[in-house]
């Protein structure tokens, strides 16, 4: 089976995974786009990408841990509670934050690596790496316990950057999916 036939649907799943992770649509307490589902979609995609890029397999464990954590948060949110409070939970929260930084960094890095190997360095791999680095720096800043919320201007700036990041992610993954779709079609011809 051609690699592009595996990569294209996998990237599609990852794209949808990010939709679930980045977007929330709340009906009362119910978020109908739970983050946990997003991670499960990504893990499914990684299972098929592992054949092409072995390092993608390293993400299975951190991805699973994050998915379980997010599932727990989602269930608690239905009851109006939060996964917070006791010290151990706070420690777990930091662990998840660090795992998440690594997970998304490696994921986008692997996707960039796959794109580069197939000759899409300029159009796909480069932008993905830039996205990866920008996302990592921004998420690190947000994880640090600075009092961001005390400045309205800063809140607006961060919101703006986050929106830009979300859009950039969708565009970059969309571009990768299109590139491999074309490769797949050209291969058929």
């Amino acid at each position, binding site marked *: 089976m051609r690699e592009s036939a595996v990569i294209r649907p996998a990237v599609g799943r990852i794209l949808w995974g990010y939709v679930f992770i980045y977007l929330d649509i709340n009906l009362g307490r119910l978020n109908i786009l739970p983050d946990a589902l997003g991670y499960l979609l990504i893990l499914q995609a990684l299972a098929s990408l592992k054949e092409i890029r072995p390092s993608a397999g390293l993400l299975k464990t951190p991805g699973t841990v994050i998915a379980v954590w997010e599932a727990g948060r989602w269930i608690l949110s239905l009851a109006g509670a939060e996964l917070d409070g006791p010290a151990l939970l*706070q420690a777990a929260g930091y662990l998840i934050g660090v795992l998440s930084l690594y997970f998304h960094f490696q994921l986008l890095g692997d996707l960039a690596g796959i794109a580069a190997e197939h000759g899409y360095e300029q159009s796909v791999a480069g932008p993905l790496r830039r996205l990866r680095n920008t996302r990592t720096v921004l998420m690190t800043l947000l994880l640090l316990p600075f009092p961001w919320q005390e400045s309205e201007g800063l809140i607006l700036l961060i919101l703006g950057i986050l929106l830009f990041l979300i859009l950039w992610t969708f565009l970059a993954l969309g571009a990768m999916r299109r590139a491999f779709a074309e490769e797949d079609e050209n291969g058929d011809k």
Partner: protein
Amino acid sequence: MSNIYEYLAQTLSVSAAALFLLILKRCFADKLSPRWQYGVWSLLALRILLPIDVSRNILLPIPLWIESFKSAAEAGIDSAWSGVYRPISLRHILPAPDGLPQSLSDWLFLVYAIGVMAMLISYAVRYGMLRNRLRRGRPLSPHTAARMETLCEVYGLKACRAVEVRGLKTAFVCGWLRPVLVLPEDTPVEDKILLHELLHLHYHDAAQNLFWCILRALHWCNPFLHFVFDRIGNDLESLCDQRVLERLDGEERRAYGAILLSMASEKYARMPATSSISNGGRNVARRIEAIVRFKQFPRGMALVSVCMTLVLAFPILAGTQDPMEGRDLTPDNPAAFARSMAMTRLNRCTTAAGALDTWAKGILWENGLFLAAASPIERQEALEAQMREQNNGAYGFLIDSGSELSMADTTGGYWLFNLEEHPDGRVSALLAFRVIRFPDGVSPEMDRLNAEIDSRPLSVGYVLFCVEAAPTPDGYAVTEIGERSLHAAPQEELSYENSGIPMLFTLEETGETGRVRVDVRTVHWVDDDIRRANVGLDSNVTFPVPMVPDADFSGHQVWTYAKYFYGENPDGALPEQSAGLQIIRLDSPEDSVDFPPPVEIGPEAWGSSSSSSGYASAFVRVSGDPYGCVMSGSGSGDRNSGSEWPLIPHRYAIRVFRDGKAAEDFLLEYKEDADA
């Protein structure tokens, strides 16, 4: 570090941080490079060097647990270096017992301190003996020396003095300032082993080893940390392996693994200020696994490694949760009460506002734990005894407020009048509480005030406490410094000039046309109130229940009352129809007096006003009395803390009027000693 409990708090906090890092490293064992695996231990090093006072809770409330344990352990014994009511307070990490030990806990700490010294001395002695032995070593054979020189040239490394010593099984580097590369005389040494040791030399690993040995000595009686330091040493060796592998390729890497395999059965005795390729059989096996997994980690991984370390730095170095667990301090059983008392010792008020707020809440809500948190540490024992005595199921219950406040209006909150900040950091104020009425039959004064309350509609009583928040080594603590005074007045008149609440200061001057006087009263509020309608004593204030030990003053009001005694001029002549004044507040020495043009007001004019151009005025009709006064109707405006307006102005400029004409100007200057 002055007692065993401080050591326990420090070593357990370090252990918690180490455990967290071990779990994290386990998650990333095959994902992040040996550089990160070793580098992340720098957070632990910083954690060890930082006393727990810098960041109380490292992932777990360990200081609170230890403080609670100490309270139970020290009850009934007389220790020289600790006590039930002496909170653990670690300002530095070195053991420093002060005086002779008395109790078991004192002796345990002394044993610990001696152990630290013994371990450091043992390191020094063993190192000295090793250096002595190395002095008897032979210089390298020409062949070995040439190989070493070639390796240094090929890999861009610097060599150092090298010797061959009989009876050694493995090569190592000894020393930091004057390092020596030591090779076994009886066994030929492979180039890769030489490279490994040269890389140890290049990256000053012997110095790092010495550093970790010193930290190990500080925690010599913590077996878990011994395990952690062993892991750190192994990670340092793995990092060196990584550096070797990065410089070799293909078959040479496999050969390097085979060399390590040959050392797998060897024992290893850790020696300070040395680094050795062989670190014990089990560790070598782990290193071989890492070599099998070896890959050139992509350059971009450095970014995420640094970011992850930054995120980890905060919980490990700065601590996690808010130290005031259960800040409402309302325990319902003896164990919770003991824990709450421990909390009040550990989490002292760090600001004067926080101390005054906490103390006031303690009085208002009859909560002895709040009082304990905001009172001097010396009062802890007495407060605890009172709480135990008065316990009626609510373990923090304490009537410290006195019978005057038995009918306190808790919805009324409290007010801080006439706050003064002194040069030595003390903050004094009048703390006012509103009462619905006073208890009957307790004293003639209270009965009289009750009669006043009953006779005038919407009247209330209020009690003034004279208090002071002083900085102490344990944070700010509040004490009463004067007599309490009782008053009664209609609620709406409580902010009036004659309400009975003393003034902060008074300025007076007599001129040709009479006497002028300025009285000033201030009221501060703290930033933890949820809702405050206005600042007068007729408002209701809601406070959140938890303690806020680091609260700040969020605003204040200044009430200014200006009077003109127009009958007190030298000739005693009164104005015929009206008298008045204009008052301007001058906030700095550079401010100029800028009265409006002296137009004639007219003899019929009266009333008061505040002008946006910064002055206030008031006029009265003269009633024929031999003297009278005119009061400014300005009061104040709300000002937030941080406003550029100073609380107390530098000067007041007053212009007085008689029968509509400007009569005289006064300039009253505020001095520090201008008391009310």
